[in-house]
């Protein structure tokens, strides 16, 4: 096959490309330039988007003996991922931009262009497995390395996207991948894993959001608001912008008055139109009913209701649930309550190790608090 290997400049994508070469594919390496104004050097442990990362990607391609190009997707990335991330935060939701990037950039803009140029597949260093299902379709499964499994951020991929994807690391442990990189003479073998959001260069997401959201004229979130006790309605404090909060957050609430019983308060809800941040005890975070929309199915849409596993955040636990699908509406009933589930997050639905699909969380509630 003719394979386009996306090289981030990190160890995983380099080894993934190397394995694609070993498998006999005709491999071309590309590095995606996603930042509109790339910085020269990494700060912290980020793993892409700087000129240094582009350099590392190029050197990996040299070692593998494959052609290498840089593709400028900064405009698309800004529109589809960064602006979307800002919109979601402005609306009081907590999105995960990596899913958006996989959905719109890596397995859409890049894949489209690759197919147009005559490539058959795009290979990445994601930890996830692809298998051929009984119906002949491609199934997406969790990786062998449970600690590194990235099937969650790939849960937005549909069958046409999966049909042209290659994840050569799905069967491997991260430690083995590092060892293999060293054995292959790849200089990125010891490069730290990337984390945080690649477009927030110093890792200060709240500061980054504040800077950008306050620049948007007329945005309700630029206004400061009240921090309110969810049970009593009492105003406990004020804040500079609701984007600084996420559901489930405990630290940095800036409330000076302790609770009567001395137990910590958590952010339970964010109301961006009024700027109100509702806080309360840990129990208030418990939810067992989730309404989600914008479903994306890996294969056929599941019929009616299914008993499934649901993962609510990257590297989060899998919850047992009953999932009912009606058109674009996905109702998730958790068998045990979960905590800190925020609108905007993606719920990825699993049948065993297989990804069924994903949906974006719109609202949550606790059955008892509704009925009782």
């Amino acid at each position: 096959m003719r394979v386009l290997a996306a090289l981030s400049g990190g160890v995983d994508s380099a080894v993934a490309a190397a394995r694609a070469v070993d498998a006999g594919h005709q491999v071309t390496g590309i590095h995606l330039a996603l930042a509109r104004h790339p910085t020269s050097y990494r700060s912290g442990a980020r793993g892409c988007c700087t000129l240094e990362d582009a350099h590392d990607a190029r050197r990996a391609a040299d070692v593998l003996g494959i052609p290498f190009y840089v593709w400028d997707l900064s405009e698309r990335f800004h529109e589809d991922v960064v602006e979307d991330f800002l919109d979601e935060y402005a609306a009081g939701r907590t999105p995960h931009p990596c899913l958006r990037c996989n959905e719109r950039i890596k397995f859409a803009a890049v894949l489209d262009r690759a197919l147009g140029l005559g490539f058959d597949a795009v290979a990445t260093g994601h930890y996830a497995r692809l298998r051929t299902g009984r119906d002949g379709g491609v199934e997406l499964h969790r990786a062998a390395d449970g600690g590194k499994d990235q099937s969650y951020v790939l849960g937005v991929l549909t069958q046409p996207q999966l049909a042209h994807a290659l994840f050569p690391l799905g069967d491997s442990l991260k430690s083995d991948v590092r060892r293999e990189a060293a054995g292959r003479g790849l200089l990125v073998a010891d490069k730290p894993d990337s984390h945080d959001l690649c477009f927030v260069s110093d890792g200060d997401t709240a500061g980054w959001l504040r800077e950008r959201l306050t620049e948007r004229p007329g945005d309700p979130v630029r206004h400061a608001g009240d921090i309110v006790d969810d049970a009593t309605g009492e105003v406990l404090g004020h804040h500079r912008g609701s984007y600084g909060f996420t559901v489930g957050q405990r630290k940095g609430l800036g409330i000076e008055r302790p609770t009567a019983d001395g137990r910590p308060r958590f952010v339970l809800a964010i109301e961006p139109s009024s700027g109100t941040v509702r806080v309360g005890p840990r129990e208030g975070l418990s939810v067992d009913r989730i309404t989600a929309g914008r479903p994306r199915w890996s294969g056929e849409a599941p019929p009616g209701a299914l008993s499934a596993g649901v993962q609510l955040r990257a590297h989060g636990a899998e919850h047992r649930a009953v999932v009912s699908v009606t058109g674009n509406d996905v109702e998730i009933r958790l068998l045990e309550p979960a905590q800190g589930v925020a609108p905007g997050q993606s719920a990825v639905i699993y049948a065993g190790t297989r990804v069924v699909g994903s949906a974006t969380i719109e609202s949550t509630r606790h059955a008892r608090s509704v009925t009782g």
Partner: protein
Amino acid sequence: MDQPATTVYLDHAATTPMLPEAIQAMAEHLGDVGNPSSLHAAGRSARRVVEESRERIAQALGSRPGEVVFTSGGTESDNLAVKGIFWARRTEDPRRVRILSSSVEHHAVLDALAWLETFAQARVELLPVDASGAVEVAALRAAVERDPASVALVSVMSANNEVGTLQPVAEVVAIAADHGIPVHTDAVQALGQVPVDFGTLGVDALTLTGHKVGGPFGVGALVLRREVAVTPLLHGGGQERDIRSGTLDTPAIAGLARAVELSVRHQAEHALRVGRLRDDLVRGVQEQVPDALLNGDPVRRLPGNAHLTFPGCQGDSLLMLLDARGIACSTGSACSAGVPQPSHVLVAMGRSDDSARSSLRFSLGRTSTAQDVAALVAAIGPVVERARLSGSRAAVGR
């Protein structure tokens, strides 16, 4: 798996193979000991090579030997000319704060000017160009005559490195000379392709570099009229009349001199041969891709340059597809990350960003053959078709 090697090299404007004679001239001195600034026999021997090289270059370019200042190449020569002359002229008369240049200069000039604007209170005026990329002489005249006493320097390239358009340097010189304003020209691309004579041209400073004329990388010169004051950028041992400190690279200078000498001597026949190949290339490509558009002046252009817009294609897709077939060309200018930016030259010529991103430069040189042109013509049809497909494909899974 081996990646395909380049078999059809059509990027001579980026760099062109060294002439065998230049390799030989350079190799002769690589084993020599002796710093040209040293006073002993070994030093004198090296110095002799440097001075003979200087004389050969001066002879080829119609300048005096003492006017040839060796540098590390085009970028340094451009920086030395633009910054050095600006500083010296403004020191003489603090009213001289304006620099007039064109909007299609190489970044070695443009970015040096931007730096002067930010850090040295220069006022830079970039003159517009016409649709072919030639600087508008009337605009220059108007800019000079508005306040001649405030102009420190005019810098206009001899030929554009992207679209190949020759600039009206003689007219620029005539306008500036009326007011005693020095003129710098970047002749990196022009040398060896069109006649370049320092004396006839009448400029005060001229940039050239070795690796574009069959000489080695990392060496070039600024030809600078003796009467023109220049403030040095590099301070140290006082080499090159105190204008450019740094130990002279004897072997590289020997190679440079040989390349300049030969490329000037063979310029006319080279231009004729390469110009014919270029015309065949443009005709052949346009037969395969009828809507391909030749950019730049159709006549007043570098003989080795063919710069074409392929509507509906991304330039970097075309480059990648041609590269996979062993054909090397260029999208114009590349930033350090290797990300193709829309060419500032095409944008200055009035093109949209999209049109600017849909362009390729093919540049021919001494080693180019009819087979190279035939190979490109054979490949370009399918490649353009493929690139168009990749640009217009409906999104998967959206």
